[in-house]
């Protein structure tokens, strides 16, 4: 696979097209004996149906954008306004088990080389918030010597080669041309295979709608030229969002001005959330 061009949408479709053909070939082999199911299969149109015009969103040309997300962990103050705004924006249940975005805290205390890790979902932090519709980190390390402590915001990485999309049996989750990995809530059968496939724990099951759910980078906002809700409310500018196609966008500058890294690069998923200021234990 040509790694240099890995971000080009056309190249990605070519890869999917190849996999599609390989998949049909394998299916044809399986079905060869009876020859019944064979004809039912039809390859995805791959590169052939290149979206012409402006795409499916009125007033928005999805071929002109390639979205990217940055997290400057050195700036995050752990105020969790992002987690609250995200749940409000996207109607996610206010409980400690369903998050489109969350914040982790890593604390090295008393000379230990292993960090203590918690997120806002930790029972003590839920208690500190005191209200069901708010989140807050408690000050649990007040009495110990903290060598190093920092916050790391997490969200869906909208990978270039998303493992979740690969395993979805129906095409209910897919990568849009402008780079967002989306879920079709009216087509998802609720098998939860994608939740298993995601190495980042970014997906969860929406029990109310009986479908999988996750961050969309607020696709309904970014297609209206607004920032994702978490970026909009972040008071520390720890979250950066923008168009990678535009060299002067906040995200392009963030990537050019810093030595960025991604989470779990060894999976080959090609995450599109770029981090600054994380640590060896963050994954």
């Amino acid at each position: 696979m040509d790694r240099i061009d890995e971000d080009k949408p056309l190249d990605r479709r070519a890869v999917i097209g190849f996999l599609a053909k390989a998949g049909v070939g394998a299916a044809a082999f399986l079905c060869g004996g009876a020859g019944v199911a064979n004809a039912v299969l039809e390859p995805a149109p791959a590169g052939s149906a290149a979206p012409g015009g402006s795409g499916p969103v009125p007033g928005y040309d999805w071929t002109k954008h390639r979205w990217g997300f940055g997290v400057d962990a050195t700036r995050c103050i752990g105020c969790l306004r992002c987690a609250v705004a995200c749940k409000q924006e996207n109607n996610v249940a206010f409980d400690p088990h369903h998050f489109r975005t969350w914040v982790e805290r890593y604390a090295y205390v008393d000379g230990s080389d292993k960090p203590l890790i918690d997120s806002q979902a930790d029972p003590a932090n839920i208690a500190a918030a005191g209200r069901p519709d708010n989140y807050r980190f408690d000050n649990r390390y007040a009495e110990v010597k903290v060598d190093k402590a920092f916050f790391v915001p997490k969200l869906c990485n909208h990978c270039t080669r998303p493992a979740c999309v690969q395993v979805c049996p129906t095409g209910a989750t897919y990568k849009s041309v402008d780079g967002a990995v989306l879920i079709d809530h009216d087509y998802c059968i609720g098998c939860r295979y994608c939740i298993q496939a995601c190495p980042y724990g970014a997906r969860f099951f929406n029990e109310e709608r009986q479908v999988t759910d996750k961050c969309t980078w607020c696709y309904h906002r970014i297609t209206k030229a607004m920032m994702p809700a978490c970026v909009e409310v972040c008071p520390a500018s720890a979250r950066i969002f923008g168009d990678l196609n535009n060299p002067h966008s906040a995200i392009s500058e963030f990537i050019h001005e810093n030595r960025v890294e991604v989470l779990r690069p060894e999976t080959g998923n090609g995450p599109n959330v770029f981090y600054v200021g994380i640590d060896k234990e963050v994954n």
Partner: protein
Amino acid sequence: MPKHIMRLIALLVIVGATLVAGRYALVVHSYYAYGAYRGDSVTEIAALPVQVAPSSYYKSFYPAVHEKWATGIHNVVQCTVCHGPVTVGATPQLVKLENTAEICTNCHAVTAGRPTSQPQINVAKHSGKQECLNCHDPHSPLLTGKGKSIAALAAAASEGDDDFSGGSSGGTTAPAKEKLPSGNAALGQARAAVCTTCHGVEKIVRSVSAGPNLAGQTDDHVALELHAFQAGTRSSPVMEPIAKGLSANEINDLAAYFANAANKK
């Protein structure tokens, strides 16, 4: 070939043909329009309602407050952070006064993990059960013109009250001065070039080393903190050597410059 096998094959062909025909009849509209997914779902997702309104939305409801917020140091904190989400079209709700202690401490309570550049308070020592509003205007929370003056605060700090701290960096205590002399902003600007790399004026530089935005900060506060670095009562490997190289006049000039610089975020 025996009759029963011919009939079996015919049956299988009919079943197969029915499945194929059924499949073509049942595939939903727009499924292969852009790829192996329902193209209409992109349209549907993009059409979901916006819940968290941008700050500009509040401007028409509260123009004066919006103006004060937009020019103050809190202009990085969007309206929805404190006022809750507002669907575009609805009137923004106002936060009740008794909630401010909770709202402000979401960001400003001392918490392990917060970067040292974030102003943090030990609530019990700093204000007890008082409402933050008693001294601070949340739309522009610096102390000038309201409550205790920063100089009075500094005086209290020098008496060992370390309630105002920058994270794990220790207490902020400064030489107590009744009134800091005003500096020369023009002279300060010449010297400020090295400061703006990290502290910004035109924009906040996004990098690991970026410090707090100083444009629009009060001169008292800038001077107070620089004196604290100089005296070593506030620690920072970056700021201490810089502050120690400054004379008292230069500190006042810089403070005057940043106080007069427009805060553009």
